[in-house]
């Protein structure tokens, strides 16, 4: 067996009630790494064409990363993978916490579930020995209570991933939680877990993870850690908002160095963007039809970075993270202590719904974490419902008396509960905007903003067209954690990979140039996708790799851990293989890549008439063609070309 991985996975058949260990050949890791790559390798051939995502044929996998547990920093991410009931295609969701090393300490690189159990169960794995146990007493409990009960039974040291009531009720916007409310939220995979009647996975293991050259890994980690600890004084959080204003009014933009963003994250976490992002046009407002004019500093101060930080009692670090962007909060709106609301949750439940009630943000964030429902999709669906209400498409009769005017936080609080409990209008909204719009009809699809069924995150492609592109072309559409023009600047891949367009430090360029599709931008977007497939195969964190590929040495860590000595270009070829395999999965399951194109409103069709993104339209079709071409996929259909499949060793879909 090689280094860095455990060389085996655990297969659980919930229908038969059986478990078996499967050895994975070394060459699989050489071609796909672990994590996302291993998951896609296994699921591609194991999920039959046309399988019902909520049926017994779907396979749900929990995978760790190749660098997890090896002494590399930022390597604490795990992923849940499966066929998404939300999009009908490839689904994956990423989460931090302590669950990723727990998978490997149990002796496996991944745990895969097929079949459907007759009754609620959970999986308990201790030192590599797995048992399926009854979960009748846990069914109906929220995620934090479930985790607490299981830790009381098996010890505080065990790691738990579980679903809440949203997943049990098969909400298509439900996720899988760990570490008291952190969530692998996207793709609706909580519903897949619920459909299998799998309440939780409990891991208790201490297996050692083989590393080829631990001293070299530590040398690399030491250098990376010093970059993270070096902190610039940033002043009060209000300055972040004014920095956003400055970035908006300037006619030019500047290539971002991720070190700057690292400083924001270390001080405030993602909440450092709560005022800055709306100011410079990065945050969608009022269901994507508003702008900073509707959500000025006087309103966005409801989520002032310093206010959120004031309630933080301890920085929260995921496994092997030196940054600590998370925080444990004590706030009157939440029982005891809980995770602080992240930027995505604050904007989805705040600016997107025009909600200025700070307490309600804490309360709904905590409630949704406990329910196991994606805060981004929940906020986006409420914003959609509010616009339906404004347009008269939904009335008080439809909403069971709820006054869904913009910003009514009392109605929002009630509505999220109805969504989780699938009561009244909540049942219509519990599966995201695409399903809701289909049920409501009456032309509501004009403002049902999604990409292939997935609600996009709180980053506006009209500000950075790279977001719009990746929302539209990723095999998991609507995803904000893969690429953008901004991300490419921060990854700094050109410093390690030959042939990629380079940027000067803090290079100035005109904002208008962002919107002109060209070959370089297509190359950059393709490189982002390939690189993030490597990152997600390694279990690394996006915020870690934002520091740049020389400061967070992904490729060097991989070589030191595995002993492979691959060139960066070879790793990006692995990323290309993973990306193409996921696209082939979508083709096999009948997804039309053109159908995943982002909603017109979010592309500036028609353009906004005021605000930071005034008159901006994204030329998405041209950008998609360029991206597909760079990946060796058909320019007009997005299907991987036969020669690409052959080169990458992928069976035709």
């Amino acid at each position, binding site marked *: 067996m090689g280094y860095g991985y455990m060389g085996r996975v655990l297969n659980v058949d919930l229908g038969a009630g059986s478990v078996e260990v499967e050895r994975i050949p070394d060459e699989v890791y050489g071609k796909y790494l672990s994590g996302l790559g291993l998951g896609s390798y296994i699921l591609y051939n194991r999920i039959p064409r046309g399988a019902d995502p909520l049926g017994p044929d779907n396979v749900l996998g929990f995978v760790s990363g190749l660098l997890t*547990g090896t*002494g*590399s*920093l930022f390597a*604490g991410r795990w992923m849940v993978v499966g066929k998404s009931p939300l999009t009908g295609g490839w689904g994956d969701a990423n989460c931090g916490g*302590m669950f990723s*090393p727990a998978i490997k*300490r149990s002796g496996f690189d991944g745990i895969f579930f097929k079949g459907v159990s007759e009754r609620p169960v959970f999986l308990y794995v201790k*030192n*590599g020995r797995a048992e399926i146990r009854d979960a009748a007493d846990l069914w109906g409990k929220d995620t934090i209570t479930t985790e607490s009960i299981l830790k009381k039974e098996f*010890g*505080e*040291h065990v790691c738990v991933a579980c679903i809440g009531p949203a997943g049990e009720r098969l909400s298509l916007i439900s996720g899988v939680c760990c570490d008291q409310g952190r969530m692998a939220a996207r793709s609706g995979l909580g519903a897949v877990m619920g459909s299998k009647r799998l309440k939780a996975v409990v891991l208790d293991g*201490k*297996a*050692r993870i083989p590393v080829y050259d*631990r001293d070299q*890994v*530590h040398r690399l*980690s*030491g250098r990376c*850690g010093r970059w*993270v*600890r070096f902190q610039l004084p940033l002043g009060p959080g209000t300055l972040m908002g004014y920095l956003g204003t400055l970035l908006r009014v300037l006619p030019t933009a500047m290539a971002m160095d991720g070190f700057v963003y690292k400083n924001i994250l270390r001080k405030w976490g993602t909440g450092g963007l709560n005022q800055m992002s709306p100011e410079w046009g990065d945050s969608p407002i009022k269901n994507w039809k508003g702008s900073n004019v509707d959500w000025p500093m006087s309103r966005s101060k409801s989520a002032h970075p310093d206010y959120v930080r004031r309630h*933080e*009692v*301890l*920085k929260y*670090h*995921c*496994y*092997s*993270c*030196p940054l*600590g962007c998370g*925080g444990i909060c004590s706030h009157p709106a939440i029982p005891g202590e809980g995770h602080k609301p992240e930027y995505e949750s604050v904007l989805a439940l705040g600016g997107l719904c025009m909600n200025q009630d700070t307490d309600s943000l804490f309360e709904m964030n905590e409630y949704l974490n406990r329910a196991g429902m994606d805060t981004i999709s929940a906020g986006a669906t409420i914003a959609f419902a509010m616009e339906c209400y404004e347009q008269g498409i939904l009335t008080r009769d439809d909403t069971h008396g709820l006054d869904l005017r913009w910003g009514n936080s009392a109605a929002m609080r009630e509505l999220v509960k109805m969504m989780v409990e699938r009561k009244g209008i909540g049942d219509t909204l519990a599966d995201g905007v695409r399903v809701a719009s289909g049920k409501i009809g009456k032309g509501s699809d004009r403002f049902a903003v999604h990409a292939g069924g997935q609600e996009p995150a709180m980053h506006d492609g009209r500000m950075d067209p790279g977001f719009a592109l990746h929302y539209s072309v990723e095999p998991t559409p609507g995803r904000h954690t893969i690429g953008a023009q901004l991300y490419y600047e921060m990854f700094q891949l050109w410093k390690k990979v030959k042939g990629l367009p380079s940027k000067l430090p803090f290079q100035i360029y005109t904002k208008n140039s962002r919107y002109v599709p060209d070959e370089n931008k297509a190359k950059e977007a393709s490189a982002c996708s390939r690189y993030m497939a490597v990152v997600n195969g390694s279990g690394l964190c996006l915020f870690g790799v934002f520091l740049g590929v020389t400061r967070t040495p992904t490729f060097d860590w991989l070589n030191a851990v595995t002993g492979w000595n691959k060139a960066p270009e070879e790793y990006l070829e692995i990323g290309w293989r993973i990306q193409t395999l996921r696209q082939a999965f979508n083709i096999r399951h009948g997804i039309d890549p053109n159908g995943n194109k982002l909603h017109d409103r979010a592309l500036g069709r028609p353009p906004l008439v005021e605000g930071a993104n005034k008159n901006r339209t994204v030329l998405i079709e041209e950008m998609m063609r360029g991206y597909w071409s760079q990946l060796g996929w058909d320019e007009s259909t997005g299907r991987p070309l036969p020669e690409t499949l052959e080169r990458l060793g992928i069976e035709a879909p």
Partner: protein
Amino acid sequence: MPYTITDACVGCQACVRVCPVGAITGEKKAKHVIDHELCIACGACGRICPHASVLDPSGALCTMEKRSSWKKPAVDEKACVSCMVCIETCPVNCLALSAAKDSGDPHGYPYLKDAGSCIACGFCAAECPVAAIRMVQPPA
């Protein structure tokens, strides 16, 4: 790379009690066996065996050490990045994260919560990515 037990074993079960992963089995007063699949090579069995009957992965005979003299982890908070690796890797869960400091530092740091459980494996020091932990002799 597992440890093994030799024929010198008298079955006193000291190693069974100290093994953090339940890898050692055997009847009282009979030779014990280490399950190589489960062994994590922490070395606790070798340190505790009073009959010099444990071989380390290189085949060398382990020597008993008095438990009160087993080394313990000492954390250098100036070098520590609060990454949780040491806490996670500890096979007996004897490390924990402190609360934030009154001085305004919002990060917690690892500390030896349960010194009596520490088996001196040194995994925390070996796996610390930033060399912030040393194994030191406890004060006499």
